[in-house]
């Protein structure tokens, strides 16, 4: 079955703001996602002792995989948000290109730091590890890694300044764009659409995260180059995890706008902002910043009330997501007789994966559980769930939509096989991680005991499926880019 999309049916008139820049960004994102997945496959195969990998190289690949995946998730999320925000506000193309150039500069510095300088201190650059390499890398390599982050941070800052400026110009204030008029029951002749509500929230919390992240990066750089300048380690850890937590969450909150803007084309029901939706996003704005303490539950010197807040907000932060986006998606899809092509399948999967991924996250956010599980495979299990089955699926769904044309058709054989392979591979891959965590297998270890190899090898097989399906998605996207719209 196939149907033709007519303007005005469901979604806003399908304009294509800065589509060229967005397509270039998505090509880059797809290529880096694939490469980083191959890195992940290599690590799992090495842990399973199917291939030999020098432990020093393992930690370099681990660092590249972490930084590369977080960066690419953010890049693809930013491209999606920029594209759909462009339907509601006029954005300056030059700022996006500057953002992309700074991002690529950062990537070059980071890759150089890792594969030329030998930096292997993980993507979290946790103080004082970059300065205490034990001879594995020089201070210059760690400095190049952090300068790469600074370049990416500056790029994102420009991005949010432009986004925030245009939203402010259009709506008069960010709180109006956050839907406060809807919340307070005031009349608003121009209520913000869901994409703008999301854009306003992400602009606020990620700008704060980037400014604080820049402070700790520069302080760490000063310490690296002038070791006499000490940094308060606990404060540095707080700032790093605030920045890191907010940044990776922002990538999903940016990418979810693809669900708000694209799914209505399939369901025929426009996704509109209402009081509950606005309340949920305002709650997200607070929760995403207040929950980062759940990363520090093993730091016994932290004030206890902060850890308690971290645990409580971990419970609460799932509610706006599950109650609004996931539940709304279910309602929109239910009874809509929508056509299941690659785009709609991946987008619905992404909402489901994101929601499911929040459950192991909430479990790990409990102090009593975290004491046992924090340094196990449980943690990569939960974040791979909401990234692989959440953000990355949103990005692939958006890519499929960009080259879909005006006609919606049921999935062909290849699409169906690729989607099924991706779903089976990703679900199996994260399940193995969670089982490994429950079996107390530690994370971030290059060399595994004999008893753990079965887990690693099953995980490796599933990761091969993920890589294969991803290759199909990316190659399909690139080959269809040049085609005329049907």
């Amino acid at each position, binding site marked *: 079955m196939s149907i033709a999309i007519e303007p005005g049916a469901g979604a806003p008139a399908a304009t294509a703001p800065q589509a060229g820049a967005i397509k270039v960004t998505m090509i880059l994102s797809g290529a880096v996602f694939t490469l980083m997945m191959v890195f992940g496959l290599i690590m799992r195969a090495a842990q399973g002792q199917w291939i030999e990998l020098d432990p020093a190289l393992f930690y370099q690949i681990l660092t590249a995989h972490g930084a590369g995946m977080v960066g690419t998730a953010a890049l693809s999320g930013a491209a999606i948000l920029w594209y759909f925000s462009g339907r509601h506000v006029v954005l300056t193309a030059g*700022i996006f290109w500057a953002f992309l150039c700074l991002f690529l500069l950062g990537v070059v510095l980071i890759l150089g730091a890792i594969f030329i300088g030998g930096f292997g201190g993980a993507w979290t650059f946790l103080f004082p590890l970059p300065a205490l390499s034990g001879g594995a890398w020089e201070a210059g390599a760690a400095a190049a890694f952090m300068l790469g982050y600074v370049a990416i941070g*500056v790029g994102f*800052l*420009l991005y949010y*300044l*432009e986004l*925030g*400026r245009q939203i*402010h110009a259009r709506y*008069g*204030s*960010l*709180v*109006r764009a956050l839907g406060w008029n809807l919340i307070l029951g005031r009349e608003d002749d121009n209520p913000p659409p869901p994409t703008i509500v999301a854009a306003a929230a992400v602009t*606020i919390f990620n*700008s704060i995260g*980037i*400014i*604080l992240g*820049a*402070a*700790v990066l*520069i*302080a760490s750089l*000063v310490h690296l180059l002038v070791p*006499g*300048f*000490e*940094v*308060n380690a606990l*404060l*540095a850890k707080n700032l790093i995890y605030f920045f890191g937590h907010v940044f990776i969450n922002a990538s999903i909150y940016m990418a979810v706008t693809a669900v708000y803007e694209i799914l209505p084309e399939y369901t025929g029901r426009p996704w509109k902002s209402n009081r509950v939706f606005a309340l949920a996003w305002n709650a997200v704005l607070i929760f995403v910043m207040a929950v980062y303490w759940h990363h520090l539950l093993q730091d016994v010197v932290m004030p206890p009330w902060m850890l308690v807040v971290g645990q409580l907000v971990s419970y609460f932060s799932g509610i706006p997501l599950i109650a609004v986006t996931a539940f709304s998606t279910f309602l929109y899809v239910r009874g809509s007789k929508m056509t299941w092509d690659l785009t709609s399948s991946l987008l619905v999967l992404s909402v489901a994966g994101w929601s499911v991924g929040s459950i192991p996250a909430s479990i790990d956010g409990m102090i009593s559980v975290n004491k046992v599980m924090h340094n196990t495979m449980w943690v990569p299990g939960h974040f791979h769930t909401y990234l692989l089955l959440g953000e990355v699926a949103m990005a692939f769904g958006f890519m499929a939509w960009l080259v879909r044309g005006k006609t919606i058709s049921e999935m062909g054989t290849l699409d169906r096989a690729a989607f099924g392979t991706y779903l089976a591979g990703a679900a199996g891959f994260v399940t193995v991680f969670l089982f490994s965590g429950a079996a107390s297998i530690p994370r971030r270890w290059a060399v595994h005991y004999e008893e753990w190899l079965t887990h690693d090898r099953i995980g490796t097989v599933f990761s091969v499926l993920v890589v294969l399906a991803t290759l199909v998605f990316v190659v399909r996207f690139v080959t269809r880019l040049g085609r005329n719209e049907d």
Partner: protein
Amino acid sequence: MKMMGLTVLAIAEAVALRGGTIESPIQHVLVQMPLLALAGMVGVHELRIRQYWAIPFLLLALTTFLFWMLPRNVDWALTPAGELAKYISLPLLLGLPLRLCWPRLGPILRGFLKANALSMLGVLGFLYTHAPIRICNSYLVSAQQDLGFAFLYLAAALACLWALPVLFGYPRWLPDAAAGCIKCGA
């Protein structure tokens, strides 16, 4: 004329603080130095420059700012030669060019400079509160730590000052000119 009066007042207050600057780095770095820069800003409040001067003036202001951020220069500013340099350079090479170039800068660049100022205040707070050595030889370690916390409080205050109008919109009771003033960050 009113602006010239304010300039003289700012310089007079800065001079009157001479004694306090020897005792407290907060009075020196966060009161006297900003007053001197403010004197330069207020003195040229009505003047306008051509667009092509904006970036050179900005670079001049930033260079001067960076020079006086260095702790050894804060020490030097308490010597007679350094004091003279401070009284001349902060109004003329920081306040004046910053005020003249600011309205000519694009909104993204202004936003970037503000965000960068907040980050750098955070970095200074980081360093001054935890440095195991005296960064400025003229001040006690305890005074240095106080200065570090003052940097953090200032960062928080400026973040609120700059973010509130963006979050909640510009107050309607402000005249247009004042709103423009907030928008340009003056």
